[in-house]
């Protein structure tokens, strides 16, 4: 009896440990998935900015319809509901490849305000990009400023 009881204890213990491990695994996967998703969002920003930036620099000819489409994408990306892709714990310590600083989750109102600044800048670009090249060039700075503001405060430096 007492041996059986002990065995039960061991089995229960193992089950709990395994359960915890599985739970931990699932949580890790969720954090990694969220990190990947927001990195993909950043890639989409970069792609559309590349189109606008190439025209702004004069490396590619200005074309109103393509510029307008890219600017529209930027604004849609900035307005995405991001509440699911920034789970707490998906910072540089928690997820391999993440450069998010834990300070993000300590300053959420500021992070949201910085995203609002991007939405404002991207909306201005939506109007500017289809207008003409000078307007597009003038709208690039505010977008860079808003991207940089968040990166500077909340991202691990790259080198």
């Amino acid at each position, binding site marked *: 009896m007492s041996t059986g009881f002990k065995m039960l204890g061991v089995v229960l213990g193992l089950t709990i440990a395994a359960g915890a491990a599985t739970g931990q695994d699932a949580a890790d996967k969720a954090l990694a998935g969220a990190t990947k998703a927001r990195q993909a969002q950043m890639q989409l920003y*970069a792609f559309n900015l590349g189109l606008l*930036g190439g025209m702004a620099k004069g490396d590619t000819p200005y074309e109103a319809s393509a510029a307008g489409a890219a600017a529209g994408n930027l604004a849609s990306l900035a307005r995405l509901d991001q509440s699911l892709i920034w789970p707490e714990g998906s910072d540089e310590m928690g997820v391999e490849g993440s450069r998010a600083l834990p300070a993000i989750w300590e300053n959420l109102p500021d992070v949201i305000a910085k995203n609002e600044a991007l939405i404002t800048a991207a909306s201005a670009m939506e109007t500017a990009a289809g207008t003409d090249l000078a307007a597009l060039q003038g709208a690039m700075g505010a977008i860079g400023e808003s991207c940089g503001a968040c990166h500077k405060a909340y991202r691990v430096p790259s080198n």
Partner: protein
Amino acid sequence: MRKFLVIVTVVLLLLAGGAWWLTMPARVTASDYAALIGVPARGATVFHAGGCASCHSAEGAIEDARLILSGGRAFASDFGTFHAPNISQDNDHGIGSWEVTDLANAMINGTSPQGQHYYPAFPYTAYSRATPQDIADLYAYMITLPADATPDLPHDLAFPFTLRRGLGLWKALYLTDAWQITGDLTEAEQRGRYLAEALGHCAECHTPRGPLGALDRNRWMAGAPNPSGRGTIPNITPAKLDWSESDLIAYFTSGFTPDYDTAGGSMAAVVTSLAQLPQTDRAALAAYLKRLPPID
């Protein structure tokens, strides 16, 4: 024997006198500035090109708050931690009582109105190449900026770096008004050199330093360890930086790299300043960078 002692004493006195003379803080000639009329709008360009706000505004200051030059930011170095002073227009805690020659002495000679040496954390090693007219313009602009009564924080340095007089020797060794990049330069490249080597002081971070903290001019802009301890400051000679001139201009304007990532670390603040310059000045800087000798 007595004669010998007299000779030794005289020699020692001469040496001490020589050292005293050698370490004496230098001053500009006031008459060079007397006739200059400063124009605030041009001074704003000097201010942004010089990156004054990046160090002298309060930590974390953005937008208009960058024009409140209350000081206080900390700069780690091998010699200790420097704290940027208040250079706002406050009469007691800032530089509100300064004349244009006080600003010129600070920037050209690293000498305070009280006749003390400044530490070269303040990059007079670059500003010493600034023209008197630019300093007069800068002065005219700075007196339009707000006053702030934040007291200065003392530097936190190890002995013997606490002895400011010794900086006279350092200056005698390392303070030069010669240009680093010489030769047949276009007008844009010359303007870029002035912006980079006189006002912008790019080399202060992008060039490595020797044991006494002087720039290693053989590795001009070839990258350096980050004094803040994290990572390195990149090599921006054409050997490592393969961005086109239009890439560089775009970076100085919006902060976007050719991959549409953004400027990081201290460079983000530099870009904020560069974005205020005329487009021709950003193009001149890009032209200068393209002229740098490639160093691996």
